């Protein structure tokens, strides 16, 4: 009997691991069809170990959501400890009294094993409750599981439950079987087998009445059953979205650190930066086919667990647009896997020196017709006829990623922030946009006006450099302009170069902020200088639209200006300028100490160089601009500035700081029509209005425009009375120089 169970068990193990291994090898080969990564994804032992400890072992990102986070923590550690139990079970195939060396048969070990097994069961119960409560059947799009594979998810829970109970039952029968040996006086049998393993003991008690021989048979049957369940589950995992239990370890190790936010990556072709002044003929310009993604991108797609945390935070999804970051990643994964046989055939024929398999020739080479058909689908395509082609996940149309899905992204980074396995959604979206813009010249038509304006006038409105100093005219002091007195270097007495930004220089509302900041700096005795006509757009909207060429042109021109002027410290009022100057200009040779005006103002207040005296009796709320908060972790300074203003009472919005909800302007969406779903800015403005604040503040001109429009809309409808949208700096100015503060309602506000 022992021999039979050993042989059966080993056959089962070898067979199942063979099937799973074959699948994993196939997935590995698919991953290898991806492109090499740039240096941001090169392996770094220190940061990888840290990330594994923080994100995998400590489950930090999952624990951002307390309930589901604790449940996942329990099931993760439950399975980790369960590995010991599994090891014991494998040992039991050859020796029923097998013990793991060191851990042996101590009661504390048995107790811990069973405790974690029971935690697993408790976690599964919690997951069942979560899945029922948040079922898409009831909540529709508001469910984070909307669009996920629901059947397999339930099956995974069921299988985890089966793994746990079969192991415990086997151990119960094992206890009884050992007791038989014990009673028979077998001298080698350890006494009190699996002491402390309380859950196993429950099964032992339950099975005890079945008699000695039945328990011996039961032990073998349950052992084989538990291994069959476990190994079967392993096979299932390799064919399902549950792959994350293997892949997330690698995905976390190779992820961009500290996070895939802030700077966008340069355009890489074959792992090397593309030189836009003299590109190679074969250089890839972004992603136009699934195999143009890097292997790390493909690993991202395979790692997605369809948990939907990204989807729940996405401003596009929450305003009924066709983009869900989760569905986008799932669609790319499914496309990659369906196309895989074609890709692998193409790769092996190229490797053999033959021409890559053509779509026609491929069928002859034994590639499934589905793979050939999939290979012919464009990666990004127009929306299809809604009724005719509702494909998987509700995506319609011929393209893997519908055009409107790609262009709905505001690059706010809420998805990246949430993803427990470090998927880099924004980078992938921008890479696909890059191909669309650079190679296909395909983008929402209205954004072309902005691109042309950037090219010709250096600002998105097309007003031109000659208008760039008008904002400063009403000031009662002179703003120093670089070069006005013939200097070719920024003089030493200048503390900061003030980067006014296109909005600050050209947009009427933002000009107020530009003046408020200038006045405050002047009041604090900070010497600053502006570039005036020498300034142009940093290139942020072009880059986030995917127009890397235009971004490079603008960035190189600005870096040249800044370097020639000897700029070292720069203060900016726009969150987008801040991000580009601080994080992206180093990619083109511009290294500066960049400070956002809220950080500088908070410092000046702390140093008592600015003393807010005048009361500003107002309830205030603060909107975290994505490119200041999530992308650059500047959460505290704007709040410190507001906190320093006597009389101002800050009420936070429900979605705040890391979970702040985008205003809708990022990712060059400021320059595109928003005619799908509801309006993002309205959603956020309504949230701000609901705090009952009379001052809605932000720290980015585009957020202020968007929120201002949202408030104005409500005021036209008779609501939001007396609500004003303004920059944090203006609130501070009201407390320091109330005589200079330009009060006024939100743009377009109710004239009454």
């Amino acid at each position: 009997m022992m021999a039979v169970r050993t042989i059966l068990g080993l056959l089962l193990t070898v067979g199942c691991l063979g099937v799973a291994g074959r699948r994993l090898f196939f997935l590995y080969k698919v991953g290898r069809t991806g492109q090499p990564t740039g240096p941001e994804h090169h392996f770094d032992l220190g940061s990888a170990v840290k990330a594994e400890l923080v994100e995998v072992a400590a489950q930090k990102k999952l624990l951002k959501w307390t309930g589901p986070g604790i449940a996942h923590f329990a099931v993760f550690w439950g399975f980790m400890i369960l590995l010991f139990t599994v090891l014991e079970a494998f040992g039991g195939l050859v020796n029923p009294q097998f013990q793991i060396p060191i851990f042996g048969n101590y009661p504390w070990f048995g107790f811990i094993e069973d405790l974690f097994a029971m935690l697993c069961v408790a976690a599964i119960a919690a997951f069942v409750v979560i899945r029922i409560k948040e079922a898409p059947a009831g909540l529709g799009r508001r469910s984070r599981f909307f669009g996920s594979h629901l059947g397999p998810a339930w099956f995974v829970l069921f299988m985890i439950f089966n793994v746990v109970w079969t192991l415990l039952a086997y151990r119960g029968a094992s206890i009884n079987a050992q007791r038989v040996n014990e009673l028979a006086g077998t001298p080698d049998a350890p006494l009190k087998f699996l002491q402390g393993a309380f859950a196993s003991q429950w099964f032992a008690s339950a099975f005890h009445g079945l008699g000695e021989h039945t328990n011996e048979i039961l032990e073998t049957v349950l052992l084989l059953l538990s291994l069959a369940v476990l190994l079967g589950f392993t096979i299932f995992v390799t064919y399902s979205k549950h792959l994350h239990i293997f892949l997330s370890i690698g995905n976390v190790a190779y992820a961009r650190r500290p996070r895939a936010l802030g700077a966008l990556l340069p355009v890489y072709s074959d792992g090397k930066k593309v030189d836009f002044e003299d590109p190679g003929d074969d250089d890839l310009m972004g992603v136009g086919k699934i195999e143009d993604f890097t292997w790390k991108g493909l690993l991202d797609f395979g790692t997605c667990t369809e948990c939907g945390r990204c989807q729940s935070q996405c401003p596009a999804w929450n305003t009924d647009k066709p983009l869900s970051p989760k569905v986008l990643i799932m669609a790319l994964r499914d496309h990659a896997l369906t196309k895989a046989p074609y890709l692998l055939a193409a790769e092996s024929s190229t490797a053999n020196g033959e021409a890559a398999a053509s779509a026609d020739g491929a069928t002859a080479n034994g590639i499934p017709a589905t793979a050939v058909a999939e290979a012919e689908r464009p990666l990004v395509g127009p929306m299809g006829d809604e009724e005719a082609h509702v494909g998987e996940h509700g995506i319609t149309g011929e393209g893997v990623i519908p055009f409107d899905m790609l262009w709905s992204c505001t690059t706010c980074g809420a998805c990246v922030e949430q993803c427990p396995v470090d998927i880099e959604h924004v980078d992938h979206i921008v890479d696909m946009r890059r191909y669309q813009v650079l190679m296909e010249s395909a983008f929402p038509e209205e954004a072309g006006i902005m691109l042309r304006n950037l090219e010709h006038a250096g600002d998105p409105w097309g007003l031109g450099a000659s208008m760039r100093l008008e904002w400063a005219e009403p000031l009662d002091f002179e703003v120093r302009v670089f070069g006005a007195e013939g200097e070719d270097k920024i003089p030493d007495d200048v503390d900061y170069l003030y980067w006014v930004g296109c909005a600050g220089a050209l947009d009427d509302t933002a000009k107020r902020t530009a003046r408020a900041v200038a006045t405050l700096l002047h009041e604090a005795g900070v010497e600053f200088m502006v570039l005036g006509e020498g300034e142009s757009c940093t290139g942020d909207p072009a880059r986030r639209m995917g127009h890397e060429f235009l971004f490079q042109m603008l960035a190189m021109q600005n870096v040249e200006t800044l370097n020639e002027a000897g700029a070292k410290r720069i203060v900016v009022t726009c969150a987008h300028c801040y991000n580009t100057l601080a994080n992206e200009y180093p990619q083109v040779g511009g290294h500066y100490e960049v400070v956002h005006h809220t950080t500088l103002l908070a410092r000046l207040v702390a140093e008592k160089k600015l003393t807010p005296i005048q009361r500003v009796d107002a309830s205030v709320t603060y909107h975290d601009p994505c490119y200041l908060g999530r992308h650059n972790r500047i959460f505290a300074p704007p709040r410190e500035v507001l906190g320093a203003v006597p009389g101002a009472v800050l009420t936070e919005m429900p979605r705040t700081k890391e979970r702040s909800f985008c205003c809708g302007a990022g990712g060059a969406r400021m320059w595109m029509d928003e005619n799908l779903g509801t309006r993002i800015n309205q959603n956020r403005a309504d949230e701000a209005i609901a705090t009952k604040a009379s001052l809605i503040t932000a720290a980015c001109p585009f957020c202020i425009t968007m929120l201002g429009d949202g408030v104005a809309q409500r005021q036209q409808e008779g609501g939001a009375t007396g609500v004003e949208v303004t920059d944090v700096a203006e609130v501070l100015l009201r407390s320091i120089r109330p005589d200079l503060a330009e009060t006024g309602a939100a743009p377009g506000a109710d004239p009454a």
Partner: protein
Amino acid sequence: MKIVVLVKYVPEPTATWKFAPDLTVDRAGVEGRLSELDEYAVEQAAQLAEKGVASEVVFLTVGPAKATEGLRKALAIGGNTAVHVVDDAIHGSCALGTSLVLAKALEKTGYDLILTGMASTDAELSIVPQMVADRLGINQGTFAGELSVDGSSVTIRRDTDVATERVTIALPAIVSVTDQTGEARYPAFKAIMGAKKKPITTMSLADLGLSADQVGWAAASTKVVDVAPTPARTAGTIITDDGTGGSQVADFLADRGFI
């Protein structure tokens, strides 16, 4: 059918222009671009090539060395080759001089249809197409809002204040187009790179059989005698309504003869 598009490299309209001592625009001191109004003509030519109507599209410009940038932009939108007439002696030419250079160059390139923008965005004269037609002795159609070409003629739509005309003109002819013909496409990066490989032929006055004294500032029939910056905009009048706002507005308008 061969189409030649006349394009002009103009100073960037949104930039601050500076003037040289001879009161011509200091072209070195200001960014330039392909005249936006000529982009419409470039686009029409590119479309005619795509439709198979035009077998060859050539862009022709007269301008300083930097004007090749304008030609590259046009070549990114479409077309096959470009001709750049560049000669220091052309500096300061009036419309008569420019049209003479263009006409001579067109005789060199050959043409069935000549397209151009309705005006340049710097001088805004709108007169060069007519002058070129006269010099070449060919038909002309101006301010086309729409155009279609068959083997031997071009048909254009002209929108005037009183009527919309549909005019058929026998080829060879020169046609100037308006923004009504449709915005130029936004060239993809690969088209911009491809444009760098398209040939641009450079010609001098001597190549065209012209002498320096026929063109240029000295020979110009019109000369700029004075240049002054546009006065800054002054703040408008703000009327705060104290109950008499309506009548104040009425008085304001009546004072200026609007009512």
